[in-house]
């Protein structure tokens, strides 16, 4: 049998419906019989109801609602203009591809202009990636990145190792890599050149430093780890990443082994 002390201890949780059903039944039975406890309960419950009623009063929001809807429509129409730059973007990809091949293989056979093969292949391989961050959040916080990772790729948000260097983070890119959760984080630590890559997968981490290359005014970073080669560059504040097929297989083996 529950006593007055225990009722007092759990009274607020009882009122807030935060106790289990067994405790709730015990408290209910007790306050039916115990007048001081009932009076306490009654006053607290009424106080809650009273404050709720008074504080729930809200000034009209019709004007605010229409203002918000208008703003939302404005935002919704913005990306259409971005879309017009698709060709510019594709050209950029082709050019980047050319530069990377030149750099990696020294092959002189790449021409300019959008590569129809890339456009074609792009249409066919959409399923490889599940998530990107189209635009950097204005203020990047661990919370926002956590909730992004959590909601998008079911990534355990506790596994963020880099809080101490977080302020230097410039971009990140969440993806699945051959069905495995992965996130690329691009860091530009002050006074240091290079890139850090984090592959988050079952709490494993992978963080190579890269070598910075400059071609035609654009910076590329080559990173290699465990024999995997990757080339990164940023585009409109986003991190783009190219991975060799061979490296991709190695990478897959690497993530399987951890």
């Amino acid at each position, binding site marked *: 049998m529950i006593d007055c002390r225990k009722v007092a201890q759990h009274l607020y949780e009882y009122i807030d419906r935060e106790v289990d059903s067994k405790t709730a039944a015990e408290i209910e039975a007790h306050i039916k019989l115990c007048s001081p406890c009932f009076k306490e309960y009654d006053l607290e419950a009424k106080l809650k109801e009273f404050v*709720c009623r008074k504080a*729930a*009063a809200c000034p009209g929001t019709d004007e605010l609602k229409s203002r918000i809807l208008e703003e939302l429509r404005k935002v919704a129409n913005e990306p259409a203009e971005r879309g017009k730059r698709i060709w510019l973007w594709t050209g950029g990809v082709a050019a980047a591809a050319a530069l990377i*091949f030149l750099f990696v293989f020294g092959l002189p056979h790449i021409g300019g202009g959008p590569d129809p093969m890339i456009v074609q292949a*792009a249409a066919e391989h959409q399923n490889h990636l*599940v*998530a990107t961050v189209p635009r950097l959040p204005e203020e990047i916080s661990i919370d926002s990145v956590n909730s992004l990772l959590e909601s998008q790729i079911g990534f355990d948000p506790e596994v963020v190792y880099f809080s101490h260097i977080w302020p230097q983070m410039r971009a990140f*890119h969440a993806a699945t890599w051959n069905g495995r959760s992965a996130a690329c984080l691009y860091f530009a630590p002050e006074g240091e050149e290079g890139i850090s890559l984090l592959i988050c997968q079952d709490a494993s981490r992978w963080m190579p430093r890269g070598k910075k290359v400059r071609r035609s005014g654009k910076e590329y970073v080559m990173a290699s780890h465990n024999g995997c080669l990757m080339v990164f560059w940023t585009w409109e504040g986003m991190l*783009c*990443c190219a991975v060799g097929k061979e490296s991709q297989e190695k990478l897959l083996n690497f993530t399987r082994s951890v």
Partner: protein
Amino acid sequence: MVGNATTSETEKGFTFFVPNPNFNTSVMANQNHREFEELAIPHTDALLRTALRMTRNQSDAEDLVQEAFLKAYRFFDRFERGTNIRAWLFKIMTNLFINSYRNRAKRPQETSFDEVEENFLYNKLAEEGRAGTNPEKELFDKLYTDEVQQVLDRLPEEFRMVVMLNFVEGFAYREIAEIMGIELGTVKSRLHRGRKMLQKGLWDHAKKAGYVKEKSE
């Protein structure tokens, strides 16, 4: 979110991962837009009344709500369908308030509430020999809405917020913990202390306004 990015392969065996800027113009964006309006906009009233108690200022509160909606809209593809959108919106708004509005918020004098004893209001009412039936009725009947809101506004922010989220918005302790990014135990203890402060605040206000008299006076 399949289709938000593009993978392309070349004959040289390189795979490119690049964000697709055309994504937002897809049909999906239109569906998202409608869905967002239907799911999120009905919570405007709730968000505004809590924003008012957070910022304690009408125009800041409206700006905060609007900004929270825009932010939620931008991140809507990360909202897990079927989960509680109300809690999600409140979390976004609370983060926004803490990160960028808190310092702007006009700070009326916050009452210091050191050591409010347990059962404060109950004891006060009992002292006056009013502990019969409905001793609180007289007090509650006299207090106007704006007076109660003023009393709330004088609670220190961390207590005011948990009281609003629990009393008014009806969030469970673990939801409040999630929204405010604090421990469950912290929610409990803030709510406990918040209640005591509220009792003292209401009593002191009622005394000042002449609604009640202390027995000793």
